[in-house]
């Protein structure tokens, strides 16, 4: 894919083919590591949906799926509030091998909160699989067990990642055209 027609998108970072190939690799690594067991994939809404469904298709062990969502930070109305679960899991995870599936791990702040929340629910194990890992902005060192791609410090969209809620449905990952600083 040499040109990108969508306005605001600068260039493709990972093509659909590259993504599929890498997800297959990660899925088979997960299948090997959890051989003989079943896992529960917990997706974080909304960004991880595309990745989770693609990943689940290539995992070759029995699995369950659940989702959770967290409140978003906004400083616009003054007090920022506190992070909380906006949509909780439908079922408990006690005694289960849980794989938390993220679209991107950035500062690690969200992941830290989610891991803290889920670890208190007594899962048998708790691991993390992320589609993208942007390590350059990491504030909190969080354990990432599986990652598809490490990315540079650029704003990316596609395959679940949005720009003002748009572009999640792109089948590839693209870098957004940056605003010129004055």
């Amino acid at each position, binding site marked *: 894919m040499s040109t990108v027609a969508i306005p605001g998108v600068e260039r493709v970072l990972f093509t659909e083919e590259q993504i599929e190939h890498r997800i297959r690799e990660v899925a088979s690594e997960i299948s090997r590591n959890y051989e003989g067991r079943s896992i529960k994939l917990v997706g974080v809404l909304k960004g991880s949906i595309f990745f989770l469904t693609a990943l689940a298709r290539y995992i070759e062990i029995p699995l369950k799926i659940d989702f959770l969502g967290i409140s978003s930070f906004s400083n616009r109305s003054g007090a*920022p509030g*506190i*992070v909380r679960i906006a949509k909780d899991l439908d079922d408990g995870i006690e005694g289960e091998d849980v794989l938390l599936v993220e679209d991107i791990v950035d500062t690690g702040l*969200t992941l830290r909160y989610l891991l803290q929340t889920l670890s208190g629910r007594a899962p048998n194990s708790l691991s993390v699989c992320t589609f993208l890992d942007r390590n350059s902005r*990491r504030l909190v060192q969080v354990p990432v067990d599986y990652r598809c791609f490490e990315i540079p410090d650029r704003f990316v969209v596609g395959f679940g990642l949005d720009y003002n809620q748009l572009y999640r449905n792109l089948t590839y990952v693209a870098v957004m055209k940056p605003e010129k600083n004055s």
Partner: protein
Amino acid sequence: MALIAVSGHPGCRFEEVARLTSQRLGFELLTQSRIRVLTEEEFGAGYEIPDKAYPNLVTSILARLATSHHLVYCAVGGELQPRHFPGALRVHVVAPENVRVGNVMLDNRLERPAARQLLLEMEAAERSARKAKFGKTKATADLFDLVLNAESLTTEQMSELIATTSGAVGLTERGYLSAAAEAQLQFQMRLGLARHGIVPPDKITLRKKVFANNSEEMFANLLDFYRIAWDYEPRSFPVQYDRDGNVHEAFTPDFYLPELDLYVELTTMKQSLVTKKNRKVRLLRELYPHLNIQVFYQKDFENLVFKYGLAAQPVQA
């Protein structure tokens, strides 16, 4: 004055409850690390306070600050300090072992069995510290006004309950500690401290958190949102000395995140000034290689801000 003492079982993150409560009520938060910093500022770094002198020293510091602040005090044995103060609420946070093991597992990146072992060690250390400082190994429920269970209550709910209780017992309507009451307390504490050869602090003051710019305030709000404890510019590090050994240049990182043992510097300034800042950071890393510091440059920060919906567009990398 109002003093809310928050303590809890190891691994149940009572520190978060204390921090959120202080924010909710607009009280000043005094953690064990903050007490240490205040003590170091007064006595110099590396000054060892004997365990037996600790309660008197903390009371002395609390009394000094209580003349101009309402306080949330968060430390082991915190419930034993308020007996000296007229308006106090003693809060204890508990949680079942499962929950606490989970927290330790995450905080220390351990498997469950190792986390359980570490929790046992933390409990032993807490008992021993409590015994050394206060002469008791356990905090029984009758020492508290409010006991909260972190298994069924979120941090936010617990802080709300504390705030409601504070209102119900009239804590929030109290004035600050009077100068006369403080003088009387200081006299008692000085007597106790004198036995250990310690002159209690006279000059303790709390710096108000006035941020240098909006970015810093926004960053602080972001940390609050994620319940990450922070201190604003708590420490300066000398990075250059003159020939006589006097500090010629120092570097003060914007934030310190005690839970993560991480300093954060926000560099949201002109590129011409970034070079100077980079040099300081490089010197800091050379002179203090053990320090964990993360620098956020303008583009990093603005993209972070964009991610959280606070800016219209991402910026040029």
